[in-house]
């Protein structure tokens, strides 16, 4: 590691975009993504994350703002002039071509010799464990296999940047977990910058080096998964990443993570540096290893959620009066909003 910061892989400056009739999707996006990063655009649907990805890929043009890939200003370049490959949400495999031809497609249109492209396409298929079905057509594959082919096609051209648009959305949970590990492994192995779009905060936390949280066409916060979880910049980020309770205290919003909260019988006298809230258990959800309790305060407001290991939670029932206890340092005051 040197001190001089290398050129970022992606630089977005003041991007705005609206679709006809004034539906504004992006309201000024500024972002820098470093070389070799696994960077996630996270947000609810309609927050602008996919539009941002499509602007980087060149599938749409911004109303204003600039897009740099490395040193190059690509704002107005068409997709085929950008050194970027995309893994599409619906995989977008060509139905009239074999898997091998699908993967070799980019090399073919750019005039790579047949022998070389066959060799490289086969190697890419091997990498995603599909070397033995190179002659099949996409319709003969399962969803998970198609997804691997789409990944191989994005990787085979060795682009500077790979864009992934909710690529795991259509898979079942188990396959999803496997592919998360696989994607992360391949990203590390190749060192290619990944820009990943998802609305699944758990997926974002487990895979990303850094995350940008989108809401209503702006970026709420950019940071590492730990930054976002432990030091969220707003109630929106706190609510969107993990589960949280937000208490009002002297006009400030205080964030409390449920795993920091435990339950005690009423009348519990807190130790120094402990804070408490008395209340009634309004909801109990048994989740296996842990049990989640929702507490209602005296005025039916300021609810607190506690997640307690299930073996410590057997005595608590719905409707019981209890005290929620947490260490002082676990309460995180959210920064005041700038606007």
């Amino acid at each position: 590691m040197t001190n001089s910061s290398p050129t970022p892989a992606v630089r977005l400056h003041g991007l705005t975009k609206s679709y006809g009739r004034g539906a504004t999707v992006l309201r000024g996006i500024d972002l820098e993504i470093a070389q070799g990063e696994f960077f996630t655009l996270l947000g609810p649907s309609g927050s602008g994350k996919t539009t941002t990805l499509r602007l980087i890929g060149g599938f749409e043009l911004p109303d204003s703002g600039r897009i740099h890939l490395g040193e190059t200003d690509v704002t107005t370049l068409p997709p085929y002039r950008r050194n970027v490959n995309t893994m599409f949400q619906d995989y977008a495999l060509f139905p009239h071509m074999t898997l091998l031809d699908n993967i070799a497609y980019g090399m073919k249109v750019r005039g790579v010799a047949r022998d070389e492209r066959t060799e490289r396409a086969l190697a890419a298929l091997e990498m995603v464990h599909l070397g033995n079905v190179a002659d099949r057509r996409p319709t003969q594959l399962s969803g998970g296999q198609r997804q691997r082919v789409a990944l191989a096609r994005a990787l085979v051209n060795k682009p500077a940047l790979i864009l992934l648009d909710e690529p795991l959305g259509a898979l079942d949970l188990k396959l999803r977990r496997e592919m998360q590990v696989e994607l992360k492994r391949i990203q590390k192995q190749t060192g290619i910058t990944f820009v990943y779009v998802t609305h699944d905060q758990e997926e974002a936390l487990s895979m990303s080096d850094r995350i940008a949280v989108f809401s209503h066409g702006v970026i709420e916060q950019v940071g590492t998964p730990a930054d976002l979880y432990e030091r969220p910049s707003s109630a929106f980020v706190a609510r969107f990443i993990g589960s949280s309770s937000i208490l009002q205290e002297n006009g400030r919003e205080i964030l409390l993570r449920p795993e920091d909260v435990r339950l005690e019988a009423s009348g519990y006298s807190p130790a120094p540096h402990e804070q408490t809230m008395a209340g009634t258990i309004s909801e109990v959800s048994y989740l296996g290893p842990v049990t989640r309790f929702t507490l209602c305060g005296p005025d039916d407001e300021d609810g607190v959620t506690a997640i307690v290991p299930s073996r410590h939670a057997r005595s608590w029932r719905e409707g019981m009066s209890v005290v929620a206890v947490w260490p002082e340092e676990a309460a995180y005051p959210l920064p005041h909003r700038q606007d």
Partner: protein
Amino acid sequence: MTPGRKLLGHIALLVPPFGWLGVFYLGSLSVLLLSAFWQVDAMSGEIVRDWTWENFRILFSDTTYTVIARRTTGIAILVTITDIILAWPLAWVIARKVGPRLKLTLLVLVALPLWSSMLARIYAWRLILGHDGVLNWGLRLVGLPDQNVAFTNIALWIVFSYLWLPFMLMPMVAALERIPASLLDAAGDQGATPWQVFRTVVFPLAIPGMAAGSVFTFAVTQGDYVAPMLVGGAGSEFIGNVVYSNVGVSGNVPFAAAFSLILLAMVAAYMLLARRFGAFDAQ
């Protein structure tokens, strides 16, 4: 209802359509097949039911008929190619470039001529292409010499191309609509220029639509005899016209049957070919 009665009910529903098809369609087809191998007595005009290849021998040896068969097929191919070329830009715009309202308007405009009689539409072309028709009137207006297009194979080509264009256009619109937008994005993303995207993705995926359309432009053109009669000239006879005159004028039904059978075989061969290209695959 017992299973037995249910089965009887199903059979009762199937008898009328199968009966109809069996008697009128398969029945007349087999008579056609059989009579192609019969003869007409030259003196009496009676049909002689002796098996013979004579009709086919004449059809394959007499250049009059081989020329007609080649003309029929040649113009059908020309019409198909013309309609594919004409339909592409419009089908592309209707399928992918316009909003739902304009799409509906354009499709209605394309279908509108089909609400009028085919004869009326062919006669309209006589008014356009005729010696004192709209075409020459326009040419004279800008000082160009008259063209003698009417009653030629060129007129036939123009009229057929016009008649069947909507039937090429509709399946092509359907085929182009079905191509997911993400495939076009993916091709561009992989480095294909717009022309390469068209050549390697859009065109191959539109082949089933073109094949379905060509069933009309090729097979129906091959079987037509009305347009050659109305806008064709002395050298514009189609197989259908030979069949027509042999049935109606010279009363040689076996000879007409033999030529129909050849036409039928060509159309069937073409249908098989079109099926190979996905013409009949819904979806």
